[in-house]
């Protein structure tokens, strides 16, 4: 019996786990799938040496990893599999922050804010003259990376004096007990903790993405109107492995069921037509990254990229 080895991001893990579970059931355990969680970076490390067949990634591959894979002679097929929306949330007792603009978020999170923007009143006039407490995933996570890219404009450009945790449940906990808190994390954590949190709709000033403030929700993410805080999640398949019948079978199964299963574990599926394109991309064996190997890009529509990439 053969083993399909998968490793990588903890964010993507639930989707892949769900797929693997169903896949095992369907193939009656004839094909074994194992999944590790050593982070997107750790996953690529193993992937680029040919140790794993598939890598879970919460961000597109980065230049240093591209080089690594080249060195390891691993060609990869990049397959987006679902969306993750980043929900901006506050405490339910917060009765002032009914919505925010991306500009306000930038003012709050950019590096210059460190030590200066300390109060709610500094974000928008009229908000309370109270200290603001910020919560977000650790600087090391793809989520944080994407957020800074999307809001501040440069990945990693952020203030550092916020409360970080690798575990989003901890952030939920922190925000739900602190009236003056504000934070962001995957929308799933909001969906499962609606009673403890209040979502802040975000206005990106671009009416093409929905007029006015848009709250993070499955529909808005799916429709592409929750911008710029929606990001795609990926799996990377080694070209060589993809020629193995069991891997091929698995990936096909993955693409077929990704829409349903990603919803099932709390993520947002890509638009219907995107999966068709992804399937084609895989069939054709298109290697390389849609993002040019430069990491995250903001505000892109996956289906458009995919069309271009075919």
């Amino acid at each position, binding site marked *: 019996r053969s083993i399909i080895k998968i490793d990588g991001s903890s964010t993507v893990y639930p989707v892949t786990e769900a797929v693997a579970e169903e896949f095992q059931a369907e193939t009656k355990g004839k094909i074994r799938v194992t999944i590790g969680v050593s982070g997107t*970076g750790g996953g690529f*490390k193993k992937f680029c040496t040919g140790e794993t067949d598939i890598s879970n990634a919460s961000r597109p591959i980065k230049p240093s990893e591209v080089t690594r894979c080249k060195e390891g002679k691993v060609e990869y097929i990049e397959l987006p599999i679902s969306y993750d929306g980043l929900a901006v949330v506050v405490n339910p007792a917060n009765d002032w922050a009914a919505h925010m603009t991306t500009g306000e978020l930038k003012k709050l999170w950019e590096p210059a804010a460190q030590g200066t923007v300390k109060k709610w009143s500094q974000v928008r006039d009229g908000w309370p003259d109270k200290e603001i407490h910020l919560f977000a995933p650790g600087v090391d*996570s793809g989520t944080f990376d994407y957020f800074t890219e999307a809001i501040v404009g440069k990945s*990693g*450009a952020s203030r*550092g004096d916020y409360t*970080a945790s690798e*575990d989003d449940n*901890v952030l939920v906990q*922190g925000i739900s007990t602190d009236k003056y808190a504000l934070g962001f994390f995957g929308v799933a954590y909001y969906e499962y903790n609606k009673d403890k949190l209040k979502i802040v709709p975000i206005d990106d000033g671009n009416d093409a993405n929905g007029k006015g403030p848009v709250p993070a929700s499955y529909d808005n993410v799916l429709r592409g109107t929750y911008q710029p805080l929606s990001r795609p999640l990926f799996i990377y398949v080694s070209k060589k492995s993809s020629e193995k019948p069991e891997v091929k079978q698995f990936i096909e199964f993955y693409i077929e069921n990704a829409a349903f299963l990603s919803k099932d574990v709390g993520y947002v599926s890509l638009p219907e037509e995107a999966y068709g394109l992804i399937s084609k991309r895989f069939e054709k064996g298109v290697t390389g990254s849609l993002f040019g190997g430069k990491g995250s890009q903001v505000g892109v529509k996956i289906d458009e990229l995919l069309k271009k990439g075919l």
Partner: protein
Amino acid sequence: MHKGFQRGKERVIEGALFLCALLSIFTTVGIIAVLIFETADFFGEVSIFEFLTDTEWTPLFANKHFGIMPLFAGTFLTTFIAMLVALPVGLVSAIYLSEYATPRVRNVIKPMLEVLAGIPTVVYGFFALLFVTPLLQSLIPSLSGFNALSPGIVMGIMIIPIISSLSEDAMHSVPMSLREGALALGSTKLQTSIKVIFPAALSGISASCIIGISRAVGETMIVAIAAGLQPRLTLNPLVPIETVTAYIVQVSLGDTPWGTIEYKTIFAVGMSLFVVTFMLNLVSFWLKKRFWQAYE
């Protein structure tokens, strides 16, 4: 012939024992080997001077600073708080269990305390965050939701059994005749414990403390969960901080690409911790030699 065989056997055994002892050196060599190349690379790009003197640690931000001090401050602070809890409680428990408790009580309490050492540290992390911090906040309103204090305390609790159990063993094995000698002079149990048994067991007690401190320095999950992941050069226990160990897991399990300077920081940081603790151990070894050996 038999004798020759016996002697050969002794040699073989001694050799085997020696190899086992040497394994610790191999482990260290291995650790250094694993760390050294990446560390060297790291210092190729970042000057040691900056590393040692910069007061900010932000390698994962756009504006990068590579000052190790904040991480060490965090480690020092949490370790210090942990020992503030674990030392007195652990030692008092040890004395109580060894000298006061009936054998029955000791045989029940000691293993139960040891369970504390076996609780997964993830659990402790959440305990610190969800239980201890709110509790402390009701006493100290200015306490942040993430801080050094509560993981420090919880770490201390985790270490209690290390100190109490090992010290208890050490005191328990002090010969009865010494207890008799002290009691016959009219000492109370407390005086006997503190003035005779404790010093007589000092070697074992100090070993337990060293293990306890080491455990605090090396502890990861508790601080990673409850201390806030905010490197900050401060000794204020009320604000979020980050420790060396928390930083290392954060990066090693995170999404940072391998081989980048950001990633290499963990090797440099690991190496520095290794060097610093080694020097501290060197000092404590020297102190021990200097002051205690004579009466062992």
